């Protein structure tokens, strides 16, 4: 019922989309400089119009007030919308197990904007997610970027094809009979990429008789080879991270390491390879390939000058998703400087996704994605009070994190 009301509310707000709003915050974290005390954010037609201290608010603006104001949160890597909360086959679309390498699988063909978990993330301040195919196949498929507001997929999607999701390590071996070893994993990936190089060569042939027939997998891998999409490789152990770096170097891939549980052991390697990093949820479970993780990972990497984004990642059981706001808070409590922790869930992932001109900070011209809190966003007892996406009020509840 509440959901229905929200839809009606949203529908009616779409009609008045061009409403103008002013958000006053005791402290506004813009992410582009010092936080603004007694800050005001003016939003017009869904975009940020102006931001500053004690701005004059025009009379036709609806005013909202909060203790703390931040940009909408950006989850650097999730599978929400593909991996639903029921955990039964009908709502699990993040991993196709018919073959270990399937670059042709598009996230937009699976993403369900109505998923309960998306509503839950939205209520907790997450306004943009990078989601798509999951962990557990050498190449599991494509990823996409979407706003978390309700609506049909075409209306909410920002980037239909963002990266190509790949994995190294035991999760792959658990899902397929082959590869069954780490060496075989890399051999299979190299073989496929070499095939793609040959395909690419044929494509550029002037002789039309030599043109290859269309191959969706090859087309996608060519995009990867050309750097049009980044290789998002899930790797947690030092060994797998180094293998990913070696692979990226051989094929000149734009590499983003996801997970990176042992990244803190490879500071120099990561720096010299110019790898981008999405680190695991701070409260992830230290099991399996994450046994050597530390809650100080993000802090150690940041201090070494490597920018990190914090992800919710993938959860196979309870809880079915993590919330980056909570994960960044625990990182902040474990050595990550406060504003760096906020950046790890706003501007850094926006930059990583190539969307820093639209989202990730409170700046003139950017999307009106704003979160209002009744206290320090990272404190356990603080509530996310209001959430705006593109200037629309999509969540209004200062009592609970519950989305029911």
């Amino acid at each position, binding site marked *: 019922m509440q959901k229905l009301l929200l839809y009606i509310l949203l529908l009616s707000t779409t009609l008045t989309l061009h409403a103008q709003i002013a958000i006053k915050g005791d402290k506004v974290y813009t992410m582009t400089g010092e936080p603004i005390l007694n800050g005001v954010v003016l939003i017009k037609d869904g975009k940020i119009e102006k931001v500053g201290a004690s701005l004059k608010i025009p009379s036709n603006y609806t005013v909202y007030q909060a203790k703390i104001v931040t940009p909408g949160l950006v989850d650097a890597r999730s599978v929400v919308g593909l991996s639903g909360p029921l955990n039964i086959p009908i709502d699990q679309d993040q991993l196709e197990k018919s073959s270990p390498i399937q670059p042709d699988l598009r996230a937009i063909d699976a993403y369900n904007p109505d998923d309960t978990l998306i509503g839950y993330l939205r209520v907790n301040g997450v306004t943009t997610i990078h989601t798509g195919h999951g962990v557990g196949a050498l190449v599991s498929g494509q990823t996409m970027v979407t706003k978390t507001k309700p609506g049909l997929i075409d209306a909410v999607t920002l980037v239909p094809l963002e990266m190509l999701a790949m994995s190294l390590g035991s*999760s792959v071996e658990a899902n397929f009979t082959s590869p069954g070893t780490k060496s075989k994993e890399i051999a299979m990936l190299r073989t496929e990429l070499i095939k793609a190089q040959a395909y690419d060569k044929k494509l550029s042939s002037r002789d039309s008789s030599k043109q290859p027939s269309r191959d969706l997998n090859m087309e996608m891998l060519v995009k990867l080879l050309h750097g049009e999409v980044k290789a998002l490789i*899930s790797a947690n152990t030092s060994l797998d991270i180094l293998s990913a770096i070696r692979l990226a170097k051989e094929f000149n891939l734009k590499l983003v390491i996801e997970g990176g549980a042992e990244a803190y052991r490879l500071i120099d390697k990561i720096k010299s390879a110019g790898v981008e990093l999405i680190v695991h949820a701070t409260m992830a479970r230290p099991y399996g390939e994450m046994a050597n993780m*530390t809650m100080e990972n993000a802090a150690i990497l940041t201090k070494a000058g490597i920018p990190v984004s914090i992800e919710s990642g993938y959860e196979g*059981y309870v809880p079915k998703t993590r919330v980056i706001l909570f994960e960044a808070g625990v990182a902040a409590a474990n050595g990550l400087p406060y504003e760096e922790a906020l950046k790890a869930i706003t501007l850094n992932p926006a930059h990583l996704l190539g969307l820093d001109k639209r989202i990730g900070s409170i700046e003139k011209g950017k999307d009106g994605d704003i979160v209002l809190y009744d206290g320090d966003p*990272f*404190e*356990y*007892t603080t509530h996310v009070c209001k959430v705006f996406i593109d200037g629309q009020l999509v969540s209004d509840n200062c009592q*609970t994190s519950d*989305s029911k």
Partner: protein
Amino acid sequence: MRFHIMPAIAGFLRKLSSHYPLKKICMKKLAMAGVLMKLLLLLGFPGHAQEKPIAFKGALIYPVTGPAIEKGILIVQKGRILAVGDATISIPSDAETIDATGKVIIPGIVDTHSHIGGPEGGDNSNALNPEVRVLDAVNPASNSFKKALAGGITTANIMPGSGHLMSGQTIYLKMRQSDDIEGMLEVNEKGVYGGMKMANGTNSMRGTNGFPGTRAKSAAMDRELFIKAVEYKKKMDSAILKKDSAKMPERDLRMEAMVEVLEGRRVVHFHTHKMNDILTVLRLKKEFGFRVVLHHVSEAWKVIDAIAAAGVPCSIINIDAPGGKLEAMNFSPKNGALLEKAGVPVAIHTDDPITDSRFLMRSAALSVREGMSRQKALEALTIAGARMLDLGSRIGSLEKGKDADFVLLSGDPFSVYTHVEQTWVEGFKRFDRSIPSDKSFAVGGYKVFAPEENADDDDKNYEWNDGR
């Protein structure tokens, strides 16, 4: 070490007595063990510190059963609390004084539901396993106990998983240093050191041989076992009444444990999520009169009045998002607040590895965010859980004479920025964040948690840990 061994012996004796219902046999064993105990006492184990009192001065102390004390003093000696009070209480002249100004002291945390230490329950042969003991599987050297100490946990109820209707006997453990599990056992007010784990709902509905495939069958199988136990107990009681050992029923490990359940000595810890399953537990309790704690209780918010009317306590879990399994879809973070309002005793647990032992205080804070009072949230971490384990007279609050189990915090118990600085168990400092090897258990790192530390919760076998 004396302090550590004595409860173990006491536990051993009580265990014996529960396995040998005839007083005659029992007394003989008691006498033998008594001699052994005296010998141990005479030997006087070296390494037993804490003869001298230790006084912690200047901290904000939450005794939990009394009002908070600003700039308070906590004095412990010989594993017990000697005194707790404000700055005016006198400190014994021979006491070692520790300045705890700016720190916060709370009682040692009681985790009413955990799977640390590698517990195992029944196997795939049978859904009802009253005779199976977690005791025979848990590894006292497990690093997961250090992880618990890093989270401020000093006592835990270690349970087998929820993949059986009755997966076995649980153990109440103190986080003492010990080479064997006996040295960690905590014998409670009812003379037992554990409860009985039961579960309903989908986890135990495997539909395979020996397991139910439906909810109705689950309840029917539970009832059959209880009815058998009632009969066994009747025979036993009658033989004891007539002082006729020939009339005693033959020893039956399953029935002996069930008798403890029927007598209300061994509390049933019942995993239950959905509203209909919660009501089934209450129905079973009413029929057979056992004592029960409802665990997880994801849909408690739907049946608050029924739970309150039945007078059963709840041990709840807080998770960061609903779902992950069908039964947790309707989890509400408001459960704690709503149960408090209805007057139901509430504890909060980790269900480690579902939530991590290092984040149990966080779980309580999440209930505070959702409207639970700070006082009840503190109780939910300490005395409420202690009472659910029948240990409330010895642990769970800072009071004179109680066990010297306490946690020294860097700040407010419900703040994300607060760290557990020290965890003390019976007067021994068992965790100290200022020591790097201890800190590593709080934050993790290279080779801190060995792969074999993976908890052996039954849940894992079919649902969680899917992938990485």
